[in-house]
């Protein structure tokens, strides 16, 4: 048994890390909710965003948190364009084709990055990367705490967009009833692209929050996508609040199980939890609904 502060710290750590997972998952769940496909390019987009943050740091000296403000619109635009001009036309609106196209895009991005940046691992050494917040015996990572707060803020924004704006309602409408949407004057292709754009913009934020504590190489995104899948299903596919809560839960489970079982089996803990939830509450812990 570990001393209480260690356990507490692990759980808080889990929450903070889970928040960033959640952000990746929110993008995924949005795209899933509307396009009904699992976006295999999500990881590659995250990697791309992380390289974006790194480039801005390396060549413009921009702080990663500031870079988020620059990168978010760029990723938004990129996501919009990729959906509108590649996935849309090449996918013919069929689930399987879209799936393959996103797979193809991820191959292109990953290897494009490999060609340009080689496979080197890059990191950003900010002066706050190692900073901790001391609360009694607890040492909390400062950049992680920032990540937590920023994630919450982003999630609230996404939620507001989805539930309080016409575009958001249109996104949810298109998810289930395309023809009906077109008949009330919704431009379905535009909404698809907006969804993809929104999902990609979330990744820009996630990338900015990750880079001070993590590294990037052309494969990095993959490590987060698998866990993001898990979160999406746990939370209920297409559910933004579900993704957020699912992310936090996974973070805590991962922390707890790696503290008590070791990291390798900690991963097992995530998947076992995942399987159990699916078997006993198949629509996810928080219900599937976008």
């Amino acid at each position, binding site marked *: 048994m*570990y*001393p209480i502060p*260690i356990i507490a*710290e*692990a759980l808080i*750590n*889990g929450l903070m*890390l889970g928040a960033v997972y959640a952000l990746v998952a929110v993008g995924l769940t949005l795209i899933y909710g509307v396009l009904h496909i699992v976006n295999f390019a999500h990881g590659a987009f995250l990697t791309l965003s992380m390289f974006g943050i790194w480039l801005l740091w390396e060549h413009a000296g921009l702080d990663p948190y500031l870079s988020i403000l620059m990168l978010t619109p760029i990723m938004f635009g990129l996501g919009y364009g990729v959906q509108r001009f590649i996935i849309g036309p090449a996918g013919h609106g069929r689930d399987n084709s879209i799936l393959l196209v996103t797979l193809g895009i991820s191959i292109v991005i990953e*290897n494009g990055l*490999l060609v340009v940046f*080689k*496979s*080197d*691992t890059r*990191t950003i*050494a900010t002066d706050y*990367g*190692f*900073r*901790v917040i001391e609360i009694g015996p607890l*040492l909390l*990572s400062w950049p992680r705490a920032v990540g937590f707060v920023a994630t919450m803020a982003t999630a609230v924004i996404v939620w507001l967009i989805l539930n309080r704006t016409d575009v958001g309602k249109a996104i949810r409408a298109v998810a289930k009833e395309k023809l009906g949407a077109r008949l009330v004057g919704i431009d379905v292709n535009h909404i698809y692209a907006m969804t993809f754009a929104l999902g990609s913009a979330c990744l820009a934020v996630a990338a900015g929050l990750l880079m001070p504590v*993590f*590294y990037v*190489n052309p*494969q*990095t995104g*993959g*490590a*987060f996508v698998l*866990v993001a899948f898990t979160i999406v299903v746990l939370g209920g596919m297409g559910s933004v609040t579900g993704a957020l809560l699912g992310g936090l839960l996974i973070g805590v489970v*991962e*922390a707890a199980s*790696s*503290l008590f079982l*070791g*990291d*390798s089996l*900690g*991963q097992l803990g995530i998947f076992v939890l995942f399987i159990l939830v699916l078997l006993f509450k198949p629509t996810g812990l928080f219900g599937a609904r976008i």
Partner: protein
Amino acid sequence: RAQPAAVKIGLLQPMSGFLAGDGQLASIGAKVAVEEVNAAGGIKSLGGAPIELIIGDSQSNAEAGAQATETLNDEGVSIITGGFASGISTTATQAAARYDLPFIVDTAVSDAITGRGLSNTFRFGPSFSIATTIALANLQRLNDAAEDKAKTVALVHEDGLFGSGLAGLMQEKLPDMGFEIVEVISHPTPARDMSNVVLRLRSLNPDLIIPSHYYNEFVLFARTLQQQRVKPKGIYAIFGGAASSYRFVNEYPEAAEGVMDCNHWGMPDHPATAKLMQAVKDEGTFYAYNTPTNYALIHVVAQALEKAGSSDRAALTETLKTQDFDPTVMPYGIVKFDETGQNQNALPLNTQVQNGDIKVIYPEDYAQAEPVFPVN
């Protein structure tokens, strides 16, 4: 006088995929060696035939490694070197065996690679068992020499072939050496986070941490240790990747300071070392062990060709089995392959990051500096 036909040498390396960085470093070393051999007049016993390097990309996975080996064979190489990772090396040497194509593995460490009865397979570098034996012997000396001795140890390893294999061996041997193993923590590659591993260490506060993981995880680990203010007496990595990588040392000098590693490593004062470091720098990347190992390996192949006086595969295999070779930049004394194909004299070096540079501390023959222990 017509130039004799070039002798083709295959270099199998992960040029793409998650190990591509290692492939790149290896190919830099091999290319330098090829240039040197050819500049010195090629293979004299073959009438000055130049050697030509053909790179096969194993794409960081085993099937592609086998397929690339087949392609190298189609292209008519006389011998293949490289392999890098154990899984790739296993399937690739096997594929080469069908054609009696000699294959010298560079840095893959799994004991099972040699000793499968494949007569074409050789290994240049040390295997697991060789490396751990030496690493532990050095550790013992280090600790014996210290005033404030380390007693408790935590093992932190990646859960693949390499990390688990090492951890297994050490769990066997460390207790006999008087160390108490307080914790064994494994983690997956890639890892997203090391804070929970470090938290456990913080609560256990071991004297010594023995990590074995790939580069990215080591960096994450070392940075998190620093952040969480875990300060053991020493960090003693085995094949740790990072403590013998200049990238790490340059980018995170504080986290790197004092870290020790027992790894493949070139002789620091060998003239080729400086040249290779420069070549790596010219490519815009950072020096690590892959470069000198593959550099030396090409030289060994050139010597074998010279001695065999033939580019015939059987002749080369025979030569490799029976003759001695000069390992150039690698600290192996004389290269001699035993009946299983293992280079008997293969030897890892102990390095320590001191004042922002990587210094060899053991064995004395090659040492550049005295070890600093305990660090904290």
